[in-house]
């Protein structure tokens, strides 16, 4: 084996791309997990079509998985890629716009044919020239043929052999970035060894073959070292936003000493939350896969009434269906967490693509004056924290909470320093154990305006709740005008008072300057990177990023007042900006919005911020 030049890099973005059946999600995951295990910071972004097997070889059917890994703790999956692995011409074409100038492209040579070029929409027989990437570092190994050759002794049929070509490509990348193969081997053994040891062996052989091919040929000018990130001491794991959300809910249930109940209906991109919770019977979690979205939330409301910590998970279309029942939860003042993993809308929209366009639905999408708490998570790992917070606030304040996530952070993953549950506070809902003198009155409130939570089965606490307006004291049905005014006020005031129970808003960067970037939820990584880069260039720019949306935390006004301009950046048409205009009318808000079903890019953010500071 000839030793090549080794070049040190700070960080690298690789995009694995192929047909939606080519196993690109697995390939990307194995690469990112390996990077994390050797100590790199990582951030990942799967970008896949809504169809399980979209038409083969077409641009619409391309499935991608982007990994950003490096020597610092990455905050976003990166805009443009240094390396593109393209399993067919369609994948090359689909990702042309995401290539960095001079990027390395690994294209399966066996995938190039007149037919595949036609399917991918190429006009000529030379895709490289047609895309204008002749000067790039394009390598076209015959991946399929070499995989077939490497696996010829395994006895597997041709179809199964060809399925291993993604592992050959992974092997090439392992060599390019000097990664060990052990983690991937262990994974393949775990997945296949019992059921089908031949398949496990074949996949491992393909990785080795790809690695050796890259090492032995002169196809690649260099290979690269990306030094481990300097991370805080501790035990780490990689975690995706959806799994972190599910686990944060488990944590809240544990800290409240109540069983966790999830009533839900499968919907992209939220389904993994239900799947993860269904596994957690070891922690006593009960899940009901309901007959529809409405039953999902209604079973959860029933479970909340019965004394469980109840949650339901969904995406935008499902939140629409849950609206009426969410109003019931507001009216009956039961604790409930609704997780909305947002996707592109309206209607079915872009099921697999991220957007932040459900904010106003979460805030206002119900009949009547119907206030509730709205939170938003901003990275895969902080989904854990905000799911916990959603549970804490729901149970201690006796109100539904909508937690907004999105397809980007839900499916993305990153390394996470594992917290200790000893560092999390106990959650103390206002549970009523026995009837006070004179009998239990369900709408009598504590100092937080939270009503008492009396579980069915507790002697002497028999009471009735429901969607009709209730007398503020006795809890019986009331149509009294003054009572309705009072109850409307109390429901709003209860949510408003939550501001006393959440952290004061903070600003990232200097406390004053020329431009304040305002964002919320899953865009934090991109916004922070763009702000960091401009600050490094000496610009007076800071970031005010929101996780608590309703109520807004204290301290916002004071932050906003210290900047010449404020720009609110969101993946929608300006929903948070509109909300801020209503909440804090004394400021002018510029907007930067995008609805492409894609995250912001650092490049476009920087360009825009620079123009605002001229």
């Amino acid at each position, binding site marked *: 084996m000839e030793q090549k030049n080794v070049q040190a890099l700070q960080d690298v973005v690789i995009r694995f791309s192929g047909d939606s059946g080519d196993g690109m999600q697995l390939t990307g995951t194995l690469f990112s997990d390996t990077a994390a295990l050797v100590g790199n910071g990582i951030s990942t972004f799967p970008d896949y079509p809504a169809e399980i097997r979209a038409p083969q070889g077409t641009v619409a059917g391309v499935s991608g998985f982007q990994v950003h890994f490096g020597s610092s703790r990455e905050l976003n999956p990166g805009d443009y890629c240094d390396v593109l692995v393209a399993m067919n011409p369609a994948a090359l074409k689909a990702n042309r716009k995401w290539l960095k100038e001079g990027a390395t492209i690994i294209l399966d040579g066996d995938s190039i044919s007149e037919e595949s070029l036609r399917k991918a929409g190429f006009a000529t027989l030379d895709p490289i020239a047609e895309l204008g990437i002749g000067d790039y570092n394009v390598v076209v190994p015959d991946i399929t043929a070499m995989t077939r050759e490497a696996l010829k002794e395994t006895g597997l049929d041709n179809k199964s052999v060809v399925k291993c070509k993604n592992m050959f490509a992974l092997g090439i990348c392992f060599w390019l970035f000097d990664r060990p193969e052990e983690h991937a081997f262990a994974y393949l053994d775990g997945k296949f060894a019992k059921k089908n040891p031949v398949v496990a062996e074949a996949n491992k052989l393909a990785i080795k073959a790809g690695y050796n091919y890259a090492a032995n040929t002169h196809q690649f000018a260099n290979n690269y070292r990306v030094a481990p990130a300097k991370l805080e001491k501790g035990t780490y*794991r990689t975690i995706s936003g959806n799994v972190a959300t599910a686990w944060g809910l488990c944590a809240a249930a544990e800290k409240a000493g109540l069983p966790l109940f999830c009533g839900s209906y499968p919907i992209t991109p939220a389904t993994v939350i239900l799947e993860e919770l269904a596994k957690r019977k070891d922690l006593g979690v009960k899940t009901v896969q309901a007959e529809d979205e409405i039953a999902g939330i*209604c079973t959860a409301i029933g479970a909340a009434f019965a004394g469980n910590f109840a949650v339901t998970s969904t995406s935008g279309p499902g939140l629409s269906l849950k609206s009426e029942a969410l109003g019931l939860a507001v009216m009956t003042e039961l604790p409930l967490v609704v997780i909305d993993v947002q996707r592109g809308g309206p209607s079915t929209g872009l099921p697999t693509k991220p957007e932040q366009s459900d904010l106003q639905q979460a805030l206002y999408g119900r009949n009547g004056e119907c206030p509730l708490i709205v939170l938003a998570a901003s990275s895969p790992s902080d989904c854990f924290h905000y799911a916990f917070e959603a549970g804490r606030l729901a149970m201690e304040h006796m109100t539904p909470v909508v937690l907004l996530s999105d397809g980007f952070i839900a499916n993305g993953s990153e390394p996470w320093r594992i917290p200790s549950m000893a560092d999390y506070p106990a959650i103390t809902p206002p549970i009523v154990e026995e009837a006070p003198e004179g009998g239990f009155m369900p709408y009598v409130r504590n100092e937080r305006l939270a009503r008492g939570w009396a579980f069915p089965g*507790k002697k002497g606490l028999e009471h009735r709740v*429901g969607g009709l307006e209730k007398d503020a004291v006795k809890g019986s049905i009331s149509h009294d005008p003054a009572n309705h005014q009072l109850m409307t006020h109390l429901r709003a005031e209860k949510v408003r008072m939550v501001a006393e129970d959440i952290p004061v808003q903070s600003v990232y960067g200097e406390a004053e300057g020329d431009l304040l970037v305002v964002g919320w939820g899953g865009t934090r990584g991109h916004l922070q990177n763009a702000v960091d880069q401009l600050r490094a260039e000496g610009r007076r720019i800071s970031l005010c990023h929101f996780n608590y949306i309703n109520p807004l935390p204290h301290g916002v006004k004071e932050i906003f007042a210290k900047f010449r301009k404020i720009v609110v950046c969101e993946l929608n048409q300006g929903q948070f900006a509109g909300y801020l205009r209503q909440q804090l009318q004394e400021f002018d808000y510029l907007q930067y919005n995008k609805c492409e079903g894609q995250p912001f890019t650092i490049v476009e953010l920087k360009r825009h911020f620079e123009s605002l500071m001229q």
Partner: protein
Amino acid sequence: MATYNYTPADFKSDQEVRWCPGCGDHAILNAVQRALPEVADATDTPHNLFTFVSGIGCSSRFIYYMKTFGFHSVHGRANAIATGVKTANPALSVWVATGDGDSLAIGGNHFIHAIRRNIDLNVILFNNEIYGLTKGQYSPTSKLGKITKTSPYGTVEKPFNPGELVIGAKGSFFARSVDMEVMLTKECLVAAARHKGMSVVEVLQNCVIFNDKTHALFAGDKATRAKHTITLRHGEKMLFGEKREKGLVFENMKLKVVTVGEEGYTIDDVLTHDAHTPETTLHTMLAAMKYPDYPVAVGVIRDVEDPVVYDQGVQRQVEEVRAARKITCVDDLLRSGATWKVE
């Protein structure tokens, strides 16, 4: 059998009952309040475990009149909410008060899936074949051609028969009663409570304002009921009539009404009711019998032991997994799978 010595008064709330005078709901409330002391003893259920859930409609006001835990929810969702209550705490005795609009129209999906899951709920289905609370529009059980405010020229859609629907959705328990027959309703409710799994008790209820006498042709008074309804009891001959002179026989794949002692039919030819058989054919036929060709079947039509009960299955699975678990707390969970240390 436990003895709690409850009386109907123990289940009466202090709320003023606000149904229309003459409404069949009064009689159903009466039957339920009489049944619960017996249910408490028969199923060893103390007062504090009774929980009533309802949707929207006249029937759904029911829960306010019961001195039990109660949840008056939104239209159509009672069965879904009750599913959450029962799954969260299987020890509760969970009852649903619902109507033909609530459970068969807007809540139809929740109704059939609760039945399919065989979750241990006791559903009282008030069937008055009309929307009462919205003042008289046709419902999914209104007879074909029924003239109402939203069908001024008569409906052009066929009604559901709740019994057929329940059995078709894999229901393990179905009973039917008539609002005025308080003792029969009570008998059905006690049987429903004893049954493990989803129990549906349809009560033919008269809406005195918007659909008066809709059931009157066969159920208007005692004498009419004797002639035109048949009370089914497990193990008993299927006889009816003023002098129990008529019976049901099975001929040419059909049920047939005969007079015992005429045309060569003897009592031995008359069917004996088997409510416990899992076979659905005869139960479906019995539930589907319509006036005037047949007597309308009341009593417990189907009461089949089904070991697959949803809330118990969920509970059992949790217990089994917990008994063999490696992850005992969230700290364990967070550290499960691949982790690495940064020193």
